[in-house]
C-alpha cells in the first residue's frame, strides 16, 4: 500500500521532508521510523491523517503519516 510520509524539524536533516513509501498490509508507523533510521525517542509525535497516533497503529492505503521530534513553543 502507498503511504505518504512527512518529516519535520531535525528529522529533516539528511532526509527528504516528504516521500511516498510502499508498505505491506499491516504496517505501522514503527516500520517507517525503522526504515528511516529514526531513533524511537526522536519520533516524539506521530500523526496519521492529522490525528495523534501511536507508533503501533495499523496503517491503511493512502494514509499520511507525519512524524515530529519533541517540539514546543507558545
Amino acid at each position, binding site marked *: 500500500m502507498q503511504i505518504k510520509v512527512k518529516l519535520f*524539524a531535525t528529522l529533516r536533516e539528511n532526509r527528504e521532508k516528504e516521500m511516498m513509501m510502499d508498505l505491506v498490509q499491516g504496517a505501522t508507523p514503527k516500520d517507517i521510523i525503522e526504515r528511516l533510521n529514526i531513533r524511537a525517542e526522536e519520533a516524539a509525535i506521530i500523526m496519521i491523517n*492529522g490525528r*495523534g497516533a501511536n507508533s503501533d497503529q495499523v496503517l491503511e492505503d493512502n494514509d499520511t503519516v507525519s512524524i515530529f521530534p*519533541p517540539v514546543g*513553543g*507558545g
Partner: protein
Amino acid sequence: MNKFIRVDMTTLNVTTDEVPVKYVGLGGRALTSNFVADEVKPTCHALGKNNKIIFAPGLLSGTTAPNSGRISVGAKSPLTGTIKESNSGGSFSQKMAKLGIKALVIEGMPAGDKFYIVKIDINGVTIEEAPAEILGGCGNYKAIEVLSAKYGQKVGIALAGPAGENRLPSANISFKDPDGNIRSAGRGGLGAVLGSKKVKALVIDETGAGAVPIADPEKFKAAAKVFAKALLDHPVSGQGLAAYGTDVLVNILNEAGGLPANNFTAGRIEHNDCISGETLNATITERGGDGKVSHGCHPGCVIRCSQWYPDKQGKYITSGFEYETIWGLGADAGIKDLDDIAYIDRAMDDLGIDSIETAVAIATAMEGGLLPWGDGKAVLEAVNQIYEPTPLGRILASGTSVVGKVCGLFRVPVVKDQGIPAYDPRPVKGIGLTYATTPMGADHTAGYCISGNILKVGANIDPLKKDGQIEYARAMQIGTAAVDSTGMCLFVYFGIADNPGGYQALIDMINAQYGIALTAVDVDKLGESVLKVERAFNKAAGFTNAHDRLPEFFEYEPCPPHNVVWDFTPEEIDEVYNF
C-alpha cells in the same frame, strides 16, 4: 525588594514607601492583579484618571535563577475592559529587583499635553519632560537609541510607542532588550494606559545597586543548578526552542488541522513551508550577516527561543520573530513571503503595537474588504499609517473587534474583545476553554493547553475530544498564574512539566531566597487565588459567565480538514472556574 513606589502624574509627585504587608509575599502577576483589584475602580474608564498601571518584577527576578527576568505589567485594559496582566522580557525586571523595587505604580494624569520620562535610579525617581525628538510618530527603535544616548547605553527602558501616545487599544509597552532591540508586554493595550498618563517612557539605571539578598545562598545555588539542568535536559527547552524558535509550531499545528487560515475559515494551509520554523532557521543560517538563529531576551535565559532575522544582504530586520505573529500574517492573512512578514513585524514593534492583535485584525480587515488578501506590501503600507495615525491606521490599531464592527462582520475571532491567537479552538478544544474563561480575554499563554493536546508535554489528551479538557484547562490556568508570579518565562514549563524534580527546584529557589517554606500545594493555592482576584475584578466591572463564550460562528462553521465545530455547552465551560 522593599520599596513600593508611587508616581502621581496629576501632581508630578513621587512617594517611596515600605511594601504594604499584604504584598510582601507576592511578585509578578500575583502582585499586579492584587494591586489592581485593590485600588482600581472596576468600572472606571481604562484611559481615565482612575486607572492605575503597575510594574512588578517576579519573585525570583534579579537573582541568578535561569529565565527569571520577566516583568509583569498590570492595569485595567482599554481593549477588553477586564483586568490585565501582560509580561515581557528585556532587562527592566532584573534592574528593578536589584534596586530593591517591589513595584512601581503610575496613577493620575497631568492636565496638559506634555509627555514625560520617569527616571529611576539608586537616588530615587525623577520626572522629566520627554525630548521632543522621540514624540509624535518617532518609532521605538529610534526612541531607544535617543534615550540610551541620553541616559546611558546600559539603562533599561519601557516605553509607549506612537500607538501608545495616541492611546490606541492595541498599543503595547515595549521593553529594550540587552542589545537595544525590542520585547513587548504585548496584549491588552497597556501602552495606551501609559500614553493616557502622558508617560512616554520609564528609564531605569541600576548603577550602584547591590545584589538581590538571598536568605540561604547555598540552598539557592543548589536549587538553581537542578533547575537549569531540568531546562537544558529537556529536548524542547534544551535544544528545540533555540534551533527553530516558537515558529516550529506552524507545521505541527498545520498537520493537526488547527492552524487558523483565512480569518478562521480553515485549519490548514498549503504554503506552510514558506513560513515554517524550519524555513526560518534555514533562511537565517543561509543569509548569515546579523542573523542569529538563537538569542535570549534577557540575561540569564538558557532556553533562547528568540532570534535575529536578517534581510537578503544580512542586515537585521527584526528579532523575537514569534510563531503567533508569523501565523497571523502568514496563515490567517495569507501572506506567503517571510521577508514581508518580517518587515511588518518590525513595523509593529517600532509602533509599539501588539503583533498578535494586529495580525488578527489585519486578517479580519481582509475579510471585510479593507485590505487585499495575502498582500504583504499593502499590509505594510497600511500598518505604517499607524505612525500618523490616519483613520485606517487608527482602525487597525483598535483591534480585531473594532475592525469586525467597522466591516459589518459576524466572523470576528475575539473573546472579551481580544483577538484569538494561533490555535483554532474547534480542532484543539482544550485551548478553546482557556480562551473562553481566562480573565484576560482570548490569550493562549493564560493556560497553554496546546502542550497536552498537541505537543504531548505534561499530558496526552485527544485535541478533537472533550474528555479531560475541562480539568486540564483549569489546572493549566492555575499553574500559569503561579508561574507568572515568579518572574519565570513560561517556557520553563517544558523543562519541568514532566520532571517533578525540576518543579521542586523552582519552589526551592523561592524558599531559599525568601527564607520561607512553600510547598507545591501552596504554589497551587497562590495560582488559584490570583485567578479568583482577577475574576472578582471582572465581575465588578460588569462581566458575567455569558462573557466566557467563544464567538458563535465557531458553533456552526465546521473547521476543515477535520470539519469539527466548537461543542462545549455553557454549563461545561462554566465548570472550568468551579474551584
